[in-house]
């Protein structure tokens, strides 16, 4: 693999991305534009996350890649292999061992620690986008903290469904200043965004935006006094490991409507099952 520069991107591009990352860390929640490159995968497959990961990786890193919490889905496997080939870094499925974790739509269940970096793949970074289509106007709204519209969206939810029905990509306010889209993670994961020991970086390739939450940043999910934010999940234990505190996927098991709920975080689930087996033995 000597044909490639370390971690695929050339050093100038990495430098450009790192500058954007520095700015993003300095202004938590603020969307920094960057010159997103063509990557050897289609938009929507995590081109933003891959570029951020590439710019962060060092040869000593241990990389973990998850898609909806799982290490073994196509997207996760492809990206992990991509970095194995182009950076030669060690890979792992264990959350605790990883130094860099690229994720699509989840935050791992195992609490992250200082020194770890969590890289999110972001499809649409602008939380105001579906309410205000004009980019010029949304940027002005961020600049002027003109966020009444964000609550209009939640108001509409309650008016229509009797409760805030937004269940993923639930908007948050960062350090009392910028309203941010946390990428399409379930709102169950929202409480983990704030006060997290790890550095959280967000990359949107097609939209060419990078933003960040430095460790221990204050992150508040938007809500109403009489309709407070609730980090909800399916009301079941995991069918495999019995966990009651983890986010669950619903799996259809037959064509008679049979279904089961299992942890979406495969590493967490496997770890619990192993511990259980070891205890039994």
């Amino acid at each position, binding site marked *: 693999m000597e044909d490639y520069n370390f971690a695929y991107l050339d050093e100038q591009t990495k430098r450009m991305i790192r500058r954007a990352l520095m700015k993003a860390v300095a202004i938590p929640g603020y969307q920094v534009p960057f010159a997103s490159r063509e990557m050897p995968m289609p938009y929507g497959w995590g081109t933003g996350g891959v570029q951020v990961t590439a710019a962060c990786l060092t040869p000593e890193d241990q990389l973990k890649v998850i898609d909806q919490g799982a290490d073994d889905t196509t997207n996760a496997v492809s990206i992990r292999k991509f970095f194995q080939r182009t950076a030669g870094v060690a890979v792992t499925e264990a959350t605790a061992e990883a130094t860099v974790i690229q994720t699509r739509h989840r935050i791992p269940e195992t609490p992250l620690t200082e020194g770890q970096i969590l890289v999110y793949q972001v499809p649409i970074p602008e939380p105001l986008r579906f*309410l205000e289509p004009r980019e010029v106007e949304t940027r002005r709204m961020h*600049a*002027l*903290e*003109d*966020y*009444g*519209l964000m*609550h*209009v969206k939640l*108001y*509409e939810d*309650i*008016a*229509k469904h009797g409760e805030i029905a937004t269940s993923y990509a639930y908007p948050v306010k960062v350090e009392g200043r910028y309203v941010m889209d946390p990428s399409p993670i379930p709102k169950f994961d929202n409480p983990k965004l704030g006060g997290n020991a790890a550095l959280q970086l967000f990359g949107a390739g097609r939209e060419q935006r990078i933003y960040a939450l430095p460790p221990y940043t204050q992150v508040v999910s938007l*809500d*109403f*006094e*009489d*309709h407070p934010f609730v980090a909800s999940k399916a009301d079941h234990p995991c069918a495999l490991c019995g966990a009651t505190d983890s986010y669950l996927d619903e799996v259809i098991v037959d064509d008679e409507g049979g279904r089961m709920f299992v942890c979406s975080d495969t590493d967490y689930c496997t770890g619990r099952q192993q511990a259980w087996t070891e205890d039994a033995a």
Partner: protein
Amino acid sequence: MTPLLQVKSLTKRYGPRIGCADVSFDLYPGEVMGIVGESGSGKSTLLGCLAGHMSPDEGQVIFDTATGPRDTLRMTEPERRMLSRTDWAYVHQNPRDGLRMGVSAGGNVGERLMAVGNRHYGRIRETATDWLGRVEIAADRIDDRPSAFSGGMQQRLQIARNLVTGPRLVFMDEPTGGLDVSVQARLLDLLRGLVREMGLSAIIVTHDLAVVRLLADRLMVMKSGHVIEAGLTDQVLDDPQHGYTQLLVSSVLQV
């Protein structure tokens, strides 16, 4: 009494052309002022400059804020935006420009409340319902989108959305334009009642002399960017001094 708004030598140019030139006036609390003139006379430019939508080249627009009179043209953009959602309101001629067409009537009315920090859904909805009633929109339409409303209803919704935070100054750009006459009459009556009850001051731009006669206490007549005549509305209309105003008044079709 301190004027609510003091406008001094306001001038706006579009390159070599004049938008409006050397406009000065005072507006006192509770006063309604009309600005009339034909298309291109500069009345909309003037309104845009007053409301902070355009930046004039010269002059001052001094508003009596909660902390005393301040030149709004020298305010920072966030300060001006705050003012425009607390103390000011702007009613567009076309309700589509002033409403969020994809958001329910209740959401439209509630937006300003949420923008100034209201975070109690129940109270926001209660206030929105109350305001829909005040502009004669049935409470059961609260979750309908404005696209399902008639033109007159849309305009009344826009007024509710603007007045919900109890502004002190309302800018109106041809508020009854594009509505048929019977709907216009109802809207005029509504506006008069609200102006009286809330002690609002208003600046109304229109080319309809009948509208200003019924709504405005005072009148400014503009031509080619200049104010050529100003005074009590009925005095300007019944005893116009300037040749252009005389022409304007005598050109109105009698019904």
